[in-house]
């Protein structure tokens, strides 16, 4: 029997975990000094400085733009290729080694190649994000299409469901339930990869700012930027991505052969 929809979360243990992290951080600061480990207070001050100087929003906007552009390219290419390959066996077998190779290349290596090919422009970041995440979207789409030919389709056929309803009510939701969780995961990845690529390409964004902080050995600023990256990711996860992921996961678990 299904349990209650959502029991109230117990915040006590996470709160203790966060408290312990801050205490350890402070202890580390006391032991090693501000150059190695700035105190939480110093980091917050640095963050306030960044906001006051007006450098926070432009950097966040630049990183977001790079991450979302790369993600969009990856999603379009991955979905199109995955849909075609899912429906066509020879193409699937042909693309498999290519996708595996692309996945095997470390993302840092892609940054190097992107810098060689696109120089220090924002395009290097977009390319790195796209090329590292597209194979993941591709894989999920292939799995979605390949699993379509199942018992639900037999069921629909037994009731002589018209083609239009079949697409709208069976194929589309089925595809979404497989592809959407992958899209959510890749979106979160895109954000982190974008920061990394920016750091090396120096074409603006949070990564670029991290690199500058490193160049002038401003550890507090580096910490402040890291906190910005993590905070934005956590907020996006908790507010948007996680609920959506849970929603589509529930669908997929219910699909025949969806694994329980």
């Amino acid at each position, binding site marked *: 029997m299904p349990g209650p929809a959502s029991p109230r979360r117990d915040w006590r243990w996470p709160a203790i975990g966060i408290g312990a992290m801050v205490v350890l951080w402070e202890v580390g600061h006391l032991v090693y000094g501000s150059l190695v480990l700035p105190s939480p207070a110093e980091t917050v001050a640095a963050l306030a400085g960044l906001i006051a100087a007006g450098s926070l929003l432009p950097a966040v906007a630049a990183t977001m733009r790079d991450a979302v552009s790369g993600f969009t390219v990856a999603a379009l290419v991955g979905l199109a290729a995955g849909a075609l390959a899912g429906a066509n066996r020879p193409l699937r077998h042909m693309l498999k080694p290519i996708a595996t190779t692309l996945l095997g290349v470390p993302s840092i290596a892609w940054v190097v190649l992107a810098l060689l090919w696109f120089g220090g422009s924002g395009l290097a970041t977009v390319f790195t994000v796209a090329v590292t995440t597209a194979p993941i979207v591709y894989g999920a789409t292939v799995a979605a299409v390949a699993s379509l030919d199942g018992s639900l389709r037999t069921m629909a056929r037994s009731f002589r469901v018209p083609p239009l309803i079949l697409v709208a009510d069976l194929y589309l939701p089925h595809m979404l339930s497989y592809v959407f969780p992958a899209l959510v995961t890749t979106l979160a990845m895109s954000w982190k990869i974008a920061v990394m690529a920016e750091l090396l390409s120096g074409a603006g964004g949070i990564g670029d700012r991290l690199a500058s902080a490193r160049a002038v050995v401003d550890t507090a600023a580096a910490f402040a930027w890291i906190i910005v990256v993590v905070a934005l990711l956590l907020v996006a996860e908790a507010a948007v991505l996680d609920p959506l992921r849970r929603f589509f996961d*529930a669908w997929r678990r219910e699909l025949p052969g969806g694994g329980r």
Partner: protein
Amino acid sequence: MSLTTAATALRVEGLGHGYGEEAILADVSFELARGAVAAIVGPSGAGKTTLLHLVGGLAKPQSGSVRHDFSRPAFVFQDPLLLPWRTARGNIDFALSGLKLTAGERRERIRALLLEVGFTADDGGKYPHQLSGGMRKRVALARALAVRPDLLLLDEPFGALDFGLARQMQALVRRLIGERSMTALLVTHDLAEAVRLADTILVLGKGRPASIVAVQTLSRPPRLRDDAYVEAALSRLIADRDIRAAFDLDPAIAP
């Protein structure tokens, strides 16, 4: 499609089928009268589901023929096969999308059927993941009945349910078949279930390709079949030489 004998509504003749190299069924023949309930029993993997799909038109037989007078067959599958993104009501509606009904007619039909299988109005709005296994089966049954079938095809419909739930569902199905004067073909590996529900029991052998090795009829009306009758009929069936062989039991008859 018309058949020679008035009483015979379904005639399967010399049916053969296979997948790739492997022949699954060969020379399967049987007849079913309108309003009759027949059970196909046999060991797992005998080809029971394949036979049911051939009868219901989900697959084309490679040899032999399936002829029947029914205009609307409907399946209850082994898994409920509900759309996870649709409510109980929506799942029944999905099956009705092939029929020409007004929105009002559809709504009314769904409402009446959910009531019939024991759903409250509240449960009708629940999604499959919010329903227990037994409730999902009920939705699958309501969905099949929604198209007003004249031939009901059931594939191990209660296999995954616990003993009590299976008994409840068997009683429900038997009552609904009687009330709606449907003809029904049930596939099961459970002999006791066959004895409870069917008028005729067709035993599919375990050979490859498989064919029907024994036919048994039960004369007592299903609503009068108490546990003692089921026990007795079951013992009689298990004593049958061909049935013992089909289920790979020692041919020596137990005392």
